[in-house]
C-alpha cells in the first residue's frame, strides 16, 4: 500500500509540473488575438501612407519549408531570404522546417487563424493544401513557390484565389543550359536532379533549350540520381557521366549536389554551382554559380504587399526580372579561354535583357 501511495505521489508531482505550465498557453494565446486585430490596423496605414516609411515591425511573415535549412539548397535559400526580410524591415520573420505534405494543412490553418500577414509555402507539392485553405483566411496572403516550366504547361491549373500568388523564377534552366553549352569541349553536358520534385523538374525542363541556344550540336542529358542527402552516391553518379565523356556538370540535389561538384573537381572537368555561390566548395571546378534569386523574389513580393500592390495568380520572375542570378567569376575569367568568357558574358547579358524571348 505504501508503495502505491509513493507512486501516486510521483504521479501528482508529474501532473503538477504539467499543471504549472498549463496556464501558460492561455497567456500566449491572449496576445495572439489583439495581434490579429492589429494586423487589419496596420494594413490600413500601410495602404494610406505608402510613400511614408510604414511601420513594418508589426507585420508577421512565415516560411513553411519541406526540408531542413541546413540542406545547402532549396530550403536554405528560402531561410536566407526570410532572414534578410526580417533584418531589413524588423518584422517578425519565422520559418518551420521539415513539413510533410500531410501536415501542411495544419500549419496553414494555424497561421491563417493567427492572422499572419504573409505565409510563404516553399514547394509546389503543397499546392492542393494551399488552394483548399487559402480562401478561408482572406486577410492572410499566401505565397506558393511554384516551378514554372518554360513551355507554360504548368500555367493551366493555376487557381484564381485573391490571396494566393504562385511565385517563382522562370527560365533558370535556360541560363544553366546556355552556359554549359558554351563551356563544353566534348559537346556533352549533363544536369543531375536529386529527385523529381516540381522545383527540380522546372529547371530540368529548360536545360536542353538553353544548350540549343548556344551550342546546337551538343548533347544535353538530364537525369535524376534519386537522393538529396547521399553525397557519396551523387559523386559516383556524376563520375559515371564524366567517364562517358561529359565535361560540364551541374546538379540540383541539395546537399547531395556537393558530391557532384567534388566529382568534377577530381576529374578536372567544369561544373556549375547551383542555388548558392558554390565556388568555394570546389574552386577548381565551379566556374560560375546560377542561383534562384529567392532573396529578391520574396523581398519583392513582400514590398509589393506592404505597398498595397499585392498581385495574385501567376507572379513569375522571368530572366529579365531578376528571378535568376549569376555569381561572380571568382577569377575564372582569367583562367578560361577568352572567347568562352566573352561568349558567356554576351549570352548572359542578352538573356537577362530578354533578348532570347520567344526562342526557348
Amino acid at each position, binding site marked *: 500500500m505504501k508503495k502505491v501511495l509513493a507512486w501516486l505521489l510521483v504521479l501528482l508531482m508529474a501532473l503538477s509540473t504539467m499543471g504549472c505550465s498549463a496556464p501558460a498557453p492561455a497567456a500566449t494565446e491572449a496576445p495572439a488575438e489583439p495581434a490579429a486585430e492589429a494586423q487589419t490596423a496596420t494594413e490600413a496605414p500601410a495602404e494610406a501612407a505608402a510613400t511614408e516609411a510604414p511601420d513594418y515591425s508589426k507585420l508577421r511573415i512565415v516560411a513553411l519549408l519541406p526540408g531542413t535549412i541546413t540542406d545547402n539548397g532549396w530550403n536554405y535559400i528560402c531561410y536566407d531570404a526570410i532572414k534578410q526580410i526580417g533584418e531589413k524591415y524588423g518584422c517578425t520573420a519565422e520559418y518551420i522546417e521539415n513539413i*510533410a505534405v500531410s501536415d501542411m494543412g*495544419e500549419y496553414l490553418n494555424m497561421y491563417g487563424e493567427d492572422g499572419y500577414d504573409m505565409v510563404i509555402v516553399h514547394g509546389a507539392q503543397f499546392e492542393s493544401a494551399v488552394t483548399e485553405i487559402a480562401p478561408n483566411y482572406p486577410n492572410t496572403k499566401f505565397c506558393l513557390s511554384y516551378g514554372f516550366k518554360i513551355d507554360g504547361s504548368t500555367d493551366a491549373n493555376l487557381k484564381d484565389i485573391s490571396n494566393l500568388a504562385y511565385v517563382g523564377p522562370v527560365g533558370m534552366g535556360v541560363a544553366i543550359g546556355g552556359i554549359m553549352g558554351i563551356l563544353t569541349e566534348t559537346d556533352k553536358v549533363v544536369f543531375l536532379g536529386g529527385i523529381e520534385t516540381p522545383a527540380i523538374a522546372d529547371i530540368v525542363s529548360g536545360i536542353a533549350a538553353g544548350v540549343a541556344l548556344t551550342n546546337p550540336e551538343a548533347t544535353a542529358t538530364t537525369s535524376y540520381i534519386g537522393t538529396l542527402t547521399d553525397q557519396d552516391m551523387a559523386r559516383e553518379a556524376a563520375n559515371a557521366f564524366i567517364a562517358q565523356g561529359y565535361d560540364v556538370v551541374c546538379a540540383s540535389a541539395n546537399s547531395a549536389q556537393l558530391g557532384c561538384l567534388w566529382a568534377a573537381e577530381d576529374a578536372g572537368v567544369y561544373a556549375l554551382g547551383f542555388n548558392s555561390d558554390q565556388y568555394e566548395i570546389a574552386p577548381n571546378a565551379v566556374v560560375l554559380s546560377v542561383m534562384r534569386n529567392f532573396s529578391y523574389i520574396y523581398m519583392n513580393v513582400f514590398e509589393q504587399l506592404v505597398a498595397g500592390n499585392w498581385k495574385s495568380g501567376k507572379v513569375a520572375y522571368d530572366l529579365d526580372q531578376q528571378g535568376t542570378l549569376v555569381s561572380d567569376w571568382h577569377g575564372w575569367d582569367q583562367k578560361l579561354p577568352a572567347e568562352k568568357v566573352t561568349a558567356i558574358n554576351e549570352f548572359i547579358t542578352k538573356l537577362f535583357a530578354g533578348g532570347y524571348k520567344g526562342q526557348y
Partner: protein
Amino acid sequence: MKRQIPSQARRALSPAPNSKGADILRQMLVSVSAIVIALLLGMGLISLMKISPVKAFSALIEGAFSSKNALSETLVKLTPLLFTGISYALASRCGLTNLGMEGQMYIGALFSSYVGINVSGLPPILHVLLCIAAGFVGGGLWCLIAGALKVWFGASEIIVTVMLNTVAIYLIEFMVTSGPMLEPPGTVTGQSSPILDSARLATLIPGTRSHWGFILGLICIFLFWLFLWKSKKGYEVRVSGYNLQAAAYSGIDTKKNILLVTFLAGGVAGLAGVSEVLGVQGRLYALFSPGYGFDGIAVALIGMNSPIGIIVGALLFGAFRAGGNRMQMRAQVPDAIVSVIQAFVIIAVVASQMLLEIWNEHRLKKQQESKEA
C-alpha cells in the same frame, strides 16, 4: 529457475485487459514518470539552444490540447498511429518484428487511392469500404512478402521489412512522378489526381480536419482484442509468440500463423495510409508521411502491445506530434530536437518498464525467501 517461465508465460498469454488493476496502475505510473523525465531532459536540451523551455513546453501543451482545433489535430495525428501501433503489436504478439509499417502504409495508400480515383459510380459508403479493403489487401500483401520469405527461405523479417520500406517509398514516388498515378494534365509532379468525393471520409468534428478514420482505428483496436484474446487462432498466435517450438510441438501450424499474422499486420498498417488518403489528403503524394510508421514501434511499446495501451500510446505520440509542430511554431524549436526528445521518451519508457520488471522479480524472490525461512 522454474518460477520464471510460468510468470513470463502468464504475462504473454493472459489477456492484458484483464490483468490485475494494481499492476496496470503501477505500469502506467512508471511509464508516465519515465515520460516526464524524458521531457525534462528534452527541455534541458532546448535550453542549451537558448530557447526558453517553459515557452516550448507550454506550446507543446497548447498545440495538443488547448482548443477544439488543437484537439482535432491531436486526433488527426493519433489516427494513423493507432493502425501502425496495432500492426507492430500484432506481429510482436506472434513473436515477429515488423519494422515495415512505413512501407506498408505507403502501399496501402497506393491501393486505396487507385480505387478511390478510378472506380466511379458507387454509393459513398460502398466506395469507402472498397477503398479500405483495397488498402488493407495492399499493405497486407506487402508485409506478406516478409512473412513468406521467412517461412520458406528463413530470411529475417526484421531486415526484409526495413528494406521494403525504402522500396515502397520509391515505388510511390515513381507512381506519382512518371508512373500511372501521375495527375493527367501533368501540372505538379509528385501527386495523383484527387480521389472521388464518394471515397472521402466524413469529418468527425465539424470545422476541423479530424475524420472518421479515428473511428475506424477504434474498431480495429476492438477487432485486435477480439482476435487475439477471444478467438482460437489468436490464442495459437500468442502461444507461438511465446515459444515457437513449444507451439509447433503442440500441433499448432506456426508457418500458417506467421503468414496470417504478417498479412493482417501489414493490412492494418496499410489502413494508416488509407485513412491519410481518404481522410486527410484526398490524393496520393510522394513522401507524404512524416514517419507515422516508425512511431508505431514506440506506440506499441508504450502500450505494451495491449489494446488500451495502444490507444494511450497513440494519444501520447499524437499529442506529441501536434504539440511538437506548435513547439516549432511558437518557440522556434528545431524539428530535429523534437525527434531527439522522442528518442528520449522511447528509451526512458523501455528502461522504466524493464526496471519495474526487475524490481518485481526481486520482490518475488524476497517473498519466496521469507516464506522458506
